[in-house]
């Protein structure tokens, strides 16, 4: 760290700008996530939601601005994906991305917090503790009866849950969840909301989502992005009554 930062936030974004060929995907984006919080991020297509996640996870480098993690202790703009993952930031992609050829159980085993170096994976042996942890996660994500199924054969909703389970297995401090309920049935959507609330008991969660019913169900603070910066922030009712939000996103 070059300069001291005094912030109590787990994730601190200040003045983040990212441009692609002159198009500003993020335009001086600033917001903070407090430890233990769950935050929903909404906004129209192209508002910069996914780019924001790319910046936090190290996939994209910001052109300007600060991204700090854990009360300013780490500057995420200087680390790569692997280092950021090791710090404890887990990410769920928009499209469910699980290892299709591996079983549900192996997907979780690969995600479990463990030594990730080549030598240790070559000589790795499963331990009772880890099996227990996998069992727990399977129960949380409601896939216990499908543990030996190949992940590619799961339904869309089950893949989404498996991916959330893989995030849990990493034991991250912060979970970034990109559109977890896209393509889910109403029942699955409500179950996913339950699941995220359960996870939020011990972890900080940031959810990007379009589904307003789902966001309402979560009942957390909402940030609405538009053209790469924050348009409104507050409870779901405050945000959905905001005139600008109605204009650019929710529609009249």
């Amino acid at each position, binding site marked *: 760290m070059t300069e001291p930062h005094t912030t109590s936030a787990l994730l601190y974004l200040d003045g983040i700008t990212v441009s692609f060929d002159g198009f500003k995907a993020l335009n001086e984006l600033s917001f903070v996530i407090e430890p233990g919080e769950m935050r929903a991020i909404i906004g129209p297509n192209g508002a910069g939601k996914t780019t924001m996640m790319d910046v936090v996870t190290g996939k994209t480098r910001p052109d300007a601005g600060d991204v700090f993690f854990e009360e300013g202790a780490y500057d995420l703009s200087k680390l790569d994906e692997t280092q950021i993952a090791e710090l404890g930031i887990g990410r769920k992609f928009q499209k469910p991305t699980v290892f299709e050829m591996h079983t549900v159980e192996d997907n979780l085993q690969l995600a479990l917090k463990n030594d*990730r170096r080549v030598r240790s994976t070559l000589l790795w042996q*499963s331990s009772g503790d880890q099996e227990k942890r996998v069992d727990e996660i399977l129960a949380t994500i409601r896939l216990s009866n499908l543990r030996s199924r190949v992940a*590619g054969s799961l339904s869309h909703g089950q893949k989404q849950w498996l991916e959330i389970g893989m995030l849990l297995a*990493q034991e991250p401090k912060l979970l970034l969840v990109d559109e977890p309920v896209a393509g889910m049935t109403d029942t699955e959507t409500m179950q996913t909301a339950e699941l995220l609330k359960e996870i939020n008991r011990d972890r900080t969660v940031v959810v990007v989502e379009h589904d307003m019913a789902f966001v309402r169900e979560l009942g957390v603070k909402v940030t609405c992005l538009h053209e790469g910066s924050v348009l409104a922030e507050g409870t779901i009712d405050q945000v959905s009554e905001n005139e600008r939000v109605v204009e650019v996103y929710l529609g009249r």
Partner: protein
Amino acid sequence: MRAFPLTRLIDRAGVVFLVLLGAFAIAIPVLNLLVPASSSFHVTTYLVTLFGKYLCYALLALSIDLIWGFAGILSLGHGAFFALGGYAMGMYLMRQIGTRGVYGDPILPDFMVFLNWKALPVYWYGFQHFAYAALMVLLVPGLLAFVFGWFAFRSRVTGVYLSIITQAMTYALLLGFFRNDFGFGGNNGLTDFKDILGFNVRAETTRNALLVMSCLAVAIGFIICRAIVTSKFGKVLVAVRDAEARTRFLGYRVENYKLFVFVLSACMAGVAGALYVPQVGIINPSEFSPGNSIEAVIWVAVGGRGTLTGAVLGAILVNYAKTYFTSGFLAPYWLFMLGGLFVAVTLLLPRGIVGTLKWGMANRAAAKAVAAEEGADADPKAEVVPQTAAAE
């Protein structure tokens, strides 16, 4: 992922494969050396060497399957590592000729005398010792793979771009080795070998011994590959193959995983080349030709990518076909047939021979499991193994 070390390592197909290989390693020398030439069971020495050659190709195919089938790294330049291993062995064999060369120089190989060289180049030092040459067989391909992989994987060069630069690598080496001043015999390469470890390379017993060594090398290579792919490391490799970004966001250093397996694979290819050279009696720059590397990939595709046993089977079948068809009136059309075979396999049998068999069996077992799990309402024809990876 539970550990039952031995059964995990060698599955049923693996047992069958190793037993067949062992039987082959015993039967061929017996049929060649002990059965009289008049008997119809006699195997000619020509065939012994031919089989030995196939086995070297099989080891090369295994090394390609390890990286392509499991880590998704399609190298179209693996022939380079094979050839480098071959050259290292060839240099040892050249130094064994001694005064028996045409020019009778005790130190310099014939081609150097012919080029009017006065002293042995420094990089030829030490090759009179077998142990040193054997070390180089592993080290030279391994080092090249390390340097190449270090840059390529760190820069996240993947897919077709990686394949293209591997082609460029082997082509660059081809051009280099063609030059006389490179010091490896130029166009003619290295040949006219006499002894290996004091035994005449052309003797029947030596040829049989080389065949047995080749069988052993394939068996060891197979077991090493199995150990890799059945470990957690192997599961990470498959994860990289199927969803590289996901693996990275889980916190795995993908480039280190790729680099390790790429270097290991290059060393295996080097050993294959080293066993090949004393059996065919020559190594020249044409071994670096891009076409050779592509052909080796076709063997793996035919046998079944990601199956290991399939790679061996594919190498032997395609090369048998090559021997058969290039010795008759069909010879001019072999390349068309090879191309046609590749197209046919890609379109009709995307999993290859062994891959299709395994997939069929896995599907039946899985369908049974699903039926048991979900009761009578399960669809027995449900396709439970996804097609994505094999079809890529």
